[in-house]
């Protein structure tokens, strides 16, 4: 069972706004020196819940994020879509 990471989504500053993103898949992309199907690697996760009142969101990744990911960019996908 992995730990929860907190993610601040750009433009989302309110708890109500986070509802769109719940369940959306999330990816931490990074480069590595050794090639494995290409130079970049991904750790996939999903948005699990909102966190607090200011639009921060809880996410769980398939594997825990490395500490250097703190403050780093995470990609939030538009799928699974409920629109």
């Amino acid at each position, binding site marked *: 069972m992995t730990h929860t990471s907190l993610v601040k989504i750009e*433009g989302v500053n309110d708890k109500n*706004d986070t509802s769109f*993103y719940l369940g959306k898949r999330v990816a931490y992309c990074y480069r590595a020196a050794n*090639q494995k199907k*290409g130079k970049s690697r991904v750790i996939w996760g999903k948005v699990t819940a909102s966190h607090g009142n200011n639009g921060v969101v809880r996410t769980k990744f398939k594997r825990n994020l490395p500490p250097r990911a703190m403050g780093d960019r995470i990609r939030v*996908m538009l*799928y699974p*879509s409920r629109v």
Partner: protein
Amino acid sequence: FQAVRKMPKVDARQRFYPADHEPAREKGPKPAPAKLRASITPGTVLILLSGRFRGKRVVFLQQLPSGLLLVTGPFAVNGVPLRRVNQTNVIATSKKLDVSRVRVPAEAATDAFYREPAKDKKQRLKAANRGEGVFFATDDISADKPDVPESRKAAQKAVDEAILAGVDDITKAYLRARFSLRSGQYPHEMKF
């Protein structure tokens, strides 16, 4: 001791002793195909969110028996062929085209029509897994791409002609354009 497997309690005077301790499990009922979202009706323009055609705007035709959505570019407009797509990988826009005149050929309205034969899939995955930095002969690439069967081309033509019949140039340009998010644009603020 917990380590010992529990034997089922068997009445010594039973006429029948089952050979296996656990009954053979029956296969449960097949789940119903996914319920179509209210925002998705025939003729709705959908935005594809993932896969090869991500960002493309396509026209929804019908839901297939498996629950997947049958969409088309139309092919001449944006290069998306008759294709199956999952509802969850799609945003439904409020733009709707008139597809009442469109008749999808019966064989093209089945899932088997779109299923990739196992041999082709194996070849395709092999090519995809090669990744960067590996040298391969050009002959290999051509072997990986199977030809599009005539039935597919015919179905595509039939459907697309019917869709594009009443479509003006602005709508065609709209379908040709890819959806993307720019700086300052947030999907949670958008009305699709």
